[in-house]
């Protein structure tokens, strides 16, 4: 890489329409395969030889249907000038691309009003006012923004919502991601904001990789900051309950959030990986109280008890036992940990026995997303890869890396597919965020990824095989309309699998897509059981495969 001293990277023409082409159709050899398609976005975090820490942490992306046409659109959070933190050039604009469902993405940023103003990092999608339109929260460096979806256009309602005030103790925070979740099951989505570390351009240390050459400093040179929890008042405003909930008592260097009801008590819990600190597992005790139990639960650290560079995270049930497991990305030499939920609030570290320790030891990753990419009934893990550093100062350290999908061989044992999965069709890069959803309605899950100072990538799933699938789009009526927190059990072909609704994805990203199940050879699901956040149970019987079904929460009996 040969960077000039100041911000770099060409600004792409706004309004660019990009068509994708599946050149070769399905791949016959690898169980999972993707074909690259371009999209007209280049992530610009104002990289410079000064190596300000935020430069290396940008890159959130979201998939959501912004205009209600049934197709997943793509939103990219983008950087800004450093140190002014202003989007003083079009190249820093956030971007919204509308998907027409036929292979065309059109830049509709200006029309939608989502260009943004500051250094934006992550994005959380959720319909916080239950009006049937997905809103977005953009997490940024020293400034967050809540955009209300007015029906295809957005209004910045941050101040009105009460989300604009800087922290009275820590000042402006560096938010890297956010997730919407109903913490008290009142039918309203609350907001969890993931904060990284304290950053001040005037006092930021300089760290030399070699004499005269700076690289990004170790996080230990920055102070931790607390995450935030905002309770939805139901009137478009929010109340900061970080302190009273117990969240604020745990300053960290948060890099992501996984939402799940880990102990199956009907309340959503949070897992937050920290960068070179112990991870947090916030158990929801009810009554707006959370207890941090990562050590007790066995997820504070990798099995050897060492700090790792916890990056993005995802939580889904990888071994089909009904309990959501946790995986996170980290840097080379650390492995990507996998914690198997063993029930009753406990986890086993199965990084080694799953094969991930060996596979991921040389890898640096950012954004893991769990989904069934080959529709075989076992969820896989797609990880965006790339190093946090900019300079390769040690032998065998790869800064730019390809993405990798870890194919679940059944029961949470994995094989790594990189070139085999087509993921070397683009040059390696410092990949960051990722979001997953079926972009072209072919029943296979696609992935959109970002990379620092590089073009975003659309990875269209053209995996071979004729496995069946089913997608569920849930609509809460008593519960929050997005149904975040709903647990789904699908029985098909004699096998059972589980998932839950959560839009939080990997690193700084959001996948507001229907819940997708691969059914393997089964042509129907004999039983679908949904436990809504309200506690209402619903059953659907004999549902044909290969379709998206919309399920509305029944009234309480």
């Amino acid at each position: 890489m040969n960077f000039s001293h100041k911000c770099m990277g060409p600004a792409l023409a706004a309004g660019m329409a990009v068509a994708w082409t599946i050149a070769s159709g399905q791949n016959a050899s690898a169980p999972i395969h993707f074909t690259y398609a371009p999209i007209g976005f280049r992530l610009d975090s104002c990289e410079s030889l000064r190596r300000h820490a935020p430069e290396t942490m940008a890159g959130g992306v979201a998939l959501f249907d912004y205009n209600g046409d049934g197709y997943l659109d793509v939103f990219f959070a983008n950087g800004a000038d450093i140190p002014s933190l202003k989007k003083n050039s079009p190249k820093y604009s956030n971007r919204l691309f509308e998907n027409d469902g036929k292979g065309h993405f059109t830049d509709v940023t200006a029309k939608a009003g989502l260009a943004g103003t500051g250094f934006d990092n992550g994005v959380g999608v959720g319909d916080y006012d239950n009006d049937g339109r997905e809103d977005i929260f953009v997490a940024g460096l020293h400034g967050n923004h809540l955009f209300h979806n007015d029906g295809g256009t957005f209004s910045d309602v941050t101040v009105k919502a009460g989300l604009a005030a800087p922290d009275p103790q820590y000042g402006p925070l560096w938010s890297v991601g956010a997730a919407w979740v109903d913490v008290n099951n009142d039918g309203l989505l609350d907001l969890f904001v993931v904060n990284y570390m304290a950053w001040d351009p005037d006092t930021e240390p300089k760290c030399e990789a070699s004499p005269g050459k700076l690289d990004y400093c170790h996080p230990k040179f920055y102070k931790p900051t607390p995450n935030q929890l905002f309770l939805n008042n139901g009137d478009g405003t929010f109340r900061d309950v970080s302190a009273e909930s117990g969240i604020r008592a745990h300053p960290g260097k948060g890099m992501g959030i996984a939402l799940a009801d880990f102990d199956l008590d009907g309340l959503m819990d949070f897992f937050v990986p920290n960068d070179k600190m112990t991870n947090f597992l916030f158990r929801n005790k009810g009554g707006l109280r959370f207890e941090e139990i990562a050590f007790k639960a066995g997820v504070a650290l990798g099995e050897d008890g060492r700090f790792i560079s916890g990056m993005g995270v995802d939580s889904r049930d990888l071994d089909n036992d009904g309990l959501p497991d946790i995986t996170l990305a980290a840097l080379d030499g650390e492995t990507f940990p996998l914690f198997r939920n063993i029930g009753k609030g406990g986890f086993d570290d199965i990084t080694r026995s799953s094969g991930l320790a060996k596979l991921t030891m040389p890898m640096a990753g950012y954004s893991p997303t769990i989904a069934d990419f080959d529709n075989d009934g076992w969820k896989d893990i797609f990880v965006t890869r790339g190093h946090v550093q900019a300079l390769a100062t040690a032998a065998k350290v790869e800064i730019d890396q390809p993405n990798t999908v870890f194919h679940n061989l059944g029961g949470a044992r994995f094989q790594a597919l990189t070139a085999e999965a087509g993921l070397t069709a683009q040059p390696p890069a410092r990949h960051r965020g990722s979001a997953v959803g079926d972009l072209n309605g072919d029943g296979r899950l696609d992935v959109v990824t970002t990379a620092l100072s590089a073009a975003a990538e659309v990875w269209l799933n053209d995996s071979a095989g004729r496995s069946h699938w089913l997608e569920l789009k849930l609509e809460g009526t008593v519960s929050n309309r997005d149904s975040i927190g709903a647990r789904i059990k699908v029985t098909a072909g004699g096998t059972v699998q589980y998932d839950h609704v959560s839009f939080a994805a990997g690193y700084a990203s959001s996948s507001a897509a229907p819940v997708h199940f691969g059914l393997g050879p089964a042509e129907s699901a004999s039983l679908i059981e949904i436990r809504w956040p309200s506690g209402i149970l619903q059953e659907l019987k004999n549902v044909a495969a290969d379709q998206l079904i919309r399920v509305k929460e029944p009234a309480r009996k």
Partner: protein
Amino acid sequence: MVKGYICVLPLLLISCQLGASPPAPLDAAAHAALGTALAREGKYDPAIQQYKAAIHLNSHLPAIYLNLGLAYFKSKRFPDAAAAFEEAVRADEGNFQARTLLGMSYYGCARYALAAKNLKTASDRQPENEELRYTLAQSYLWSEQYPEAIAEFRFLLTRNPDSAPAHVLLGEVLDASNQVEAATAEFEAAARAPSVPPETHFGLGYLYWKQQRLSDAGREFEAELANQPQHALALTYLGDAEMRTDRQKAADVHLRRALALDQNIWLAQLDLGILLAAGGDSEQATRHFRDAIRIDPAKPDAHYRLGRLLNSQGREREAQEEFEAVKKLAAEEPQAPLLRVTGRPRQ
């Protein structure tokens, strides 16, 4: 490599040996000559005394520091030898022998960077001197000048491709510079050599182990154990590889054998604790975790394992103590690659 003493003066007959009259004081040359005579008989301490006496009278005698250094060198007093050879080199910058011996002396007292500097100067004069370059290569290795060490060992291997020690040492350098796969290839070459040095199979097994090639690692540890059945570390790593590949019974046997040979192997104590905890023997597991902590309290692993075990037994206060130790240690330990290891803030 180390030549004989340099005779700069004829050996004098000393009058006292004739028993004629009271001995006349010796001059510098006589002391030097006597020193050389004594050194030739292997009487290095009296030789050194004579050389020192000569220097006291005339420090400009030709080769006096060279001979003094050689006496020190022969008696393995390397720091003194280096000091003497420094004087010899100062008197004669171009003295190849003094330069070589200076480098060797620094090597002998483990000052490898200085050894490398002087041996490099010497080897520039005699680039075909393989013995000299072998020591130079090792000096580079131990002074962590890895690119230079790699170049030297590669040169030596062009001259002697079957040199198992050179393959092993090159493998060490490559491993130290994070080139694990290349290091493995060198150890594999050493293991194929007609004469395999001790520890080669263990080293190769360790490299496989680092790369999680556990079945390959196990094979090499077993090969080392075939030659050295009491190799406690080979038993430990073999047990560890077996434990990681779900061969718990074999792991248990090998780890216990390792601990029978040496109770102070941290990994063996830790792994046996893990095995016992998994098997439900919490009491014995706790004992082994505590032994691991005793051996190396600065490693967080055993604290974390013990904390989790105690927590599972409801011993929350004790568990919390271990977790607090983990937090403290993990924060202090060296970190991951690049600036996450080597960051030097310039405030």
